[in-house]
């Protein structure tokens, strides 16, 4: 990593002027975000605001249309393939589905990055994998196949796999979605515990306000391709902004409209009546 000696307070991830379009639709329209080292930063926003896209942009899986993303001082999208893969070895990502390989068991899934990237002897691999599985409470599930795991267990195995190479940072994609209260509670405890114990930097992308706000140090709220609020979590939780309030309090209507853009209701109804009339 080519880091300047005196920039230890530099954020680990620095996003500047990020623009990303899907066809003509702007997913991000000039977004600036700083992810400080050692803290849990939450990126929140309604569904469809491109939160997962943001993680893929940080991981270099997608290219922005404009703007830059620096991770550890390196411009992700200027790296060649080899350096990008080197950088990814220092990042862990927890996918919403877990993304476990379905043809190998839990143990082999967690051992996979070690087998691919290191020449460690089998005895060390075994110890490392069991340690990471212990950390997520699933040492006993090592022989199960991914199809035998519940959604919450799959996500914990994926988390063990994401931390097995001891990365600098972990990106969580909607870690709480679709979890029962117990699994949710386990994950809510695990994320800050891992962050502290392994001195990680975590980015949690989520729309589960209560859980995420509870564990995050910094919160960014994104809507309509822009950051509408960003700062320490208490500050965001007490914000007066109607945008932030609508999201944090879960109000159906507000600055983010309840209705998907459409022509006026009357015009739509009349058009339908005219069409039916024409048939009769």
């Amino acid at each position, binding site marked *: 990593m080519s880091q300047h000696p005196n920039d230890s307070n530099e954020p680990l991830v620095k996003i500047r002027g990020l623009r990303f379009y899907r066809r003509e639709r702007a997913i991000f329209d000039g977004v600036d975000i700083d992810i400080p080292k050692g803290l849990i930063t939450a990126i929140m926003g309604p569904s469809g605001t491109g939160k997962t896209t943001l993680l*893929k942009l940080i991981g270099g*899986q997608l290219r922005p249309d404009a703007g830059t993303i620096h991770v550890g001082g390196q411009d992700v999208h200027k790296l060649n393939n080899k350096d990008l893969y080197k950088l*990814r*070895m220092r990042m862990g990502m927890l996918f919403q589905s877990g*993304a*476990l*390989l379905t043809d190998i068991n839990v143990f082999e899934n967690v051992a996979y990055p070690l087998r*691919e990237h290191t020449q460690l002897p089998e005895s060390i691999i075994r110890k490392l994998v069991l340690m990471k599985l212990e950390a997520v409470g699933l040492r006993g599930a090592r022989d199960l196949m991914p199809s035998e795991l519940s959604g919450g267990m799959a996500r914990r195995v994926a988390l063990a796999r994401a931390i097995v190479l001891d990365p600098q940072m972990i990106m969580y994609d909607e870690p709480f979605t679709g979890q029962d209260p117990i699994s949710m509670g386990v994950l809510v405890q695990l994320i800050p515990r891992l962050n502290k114990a392994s001195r990680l930097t975590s980015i949690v992308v989520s729309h589960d306000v209560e859980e995420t706000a509870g564990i995050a140090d910094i919160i960014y709220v994104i809507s309509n391709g822009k950051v509408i609020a960003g700062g320490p979590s208490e500050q965001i939780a007490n914000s007066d902004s109607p945008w932030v309030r609508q999201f944090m309090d879960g109000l159906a209507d507000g600055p983010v409209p309840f209705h998907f853009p459409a022509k006026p209701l009357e015009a739509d109804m009349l058009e339908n009546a005219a069409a039916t009339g024409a048939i009769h």
Partner: protein
Amino acid sequence: MEQLARLGRIGISSLERLGRGHLLLAHMFSGVTALIMRPTLLIAQIHSVGVFSMLIITISGLFVGMVLGLQGYYILSQFGAEETLGVMVAASLVRELGPVVTALLFAGRAGSALTAEIGLMKATEQLSGLEMMAVDPIKRILTPRFMAGLISMPLLAALFSAIGVIGGHFVGVGLLGVDEGAYWSQMQSKIDLHEDIYNGVIKSIVFGFVCTWIALFQGHDCIPTSEGVSRATTRTVVHSALAILCLDFVLTALMFGE
């Protein structure tokens, strides 16, 4: 005017797909050296792509050979040439039916499975997950499958032809009374190593290349939904069948044209 624009769009998207297909092929080839260092990956895939296709190839080869024996005998006996049955069966199998029918069966059995597997890996974010683990999914997942298809196809075609010759022997010699010595000796003297066998092997290598490439590309390029995967699987079988039959004509014209 709108029709013209639509035609243009279809043309551009087809060209784009073709381009993506070639980029994928180049990317797969770039992983061959790494694969040589880890032969276990290749062996596992030859097992799943090749060995698991052996049963269907053996049974089909046997019946195709038996039909050839039956049909050949009825035609050849009209000219009193039933002794040449062995040549007819072997030449049809080695030159045409072996490579072509094997490739068609391969596309249905292994090609569709490859597309569905890769498509589902994409839909369940397994390929993205590998990328984020700093593992190149094309080199790690697709290259071994591609090489396995390329290696398996000529072997399966050889098996098909060999079993077919036995099937023809069973019907011709065993049931219809063709002289056994004539069946084998005529075959031995008339089937040429270069003209017949090498050309058949070249055909099956080309079909193996094209079928596996189509299957992997369709899986990798599919829309990651259940409908997308199902459409990609159908496209694999249809495109492979058409490619095999068209290429067979071209190759036959080139090899036996003079």
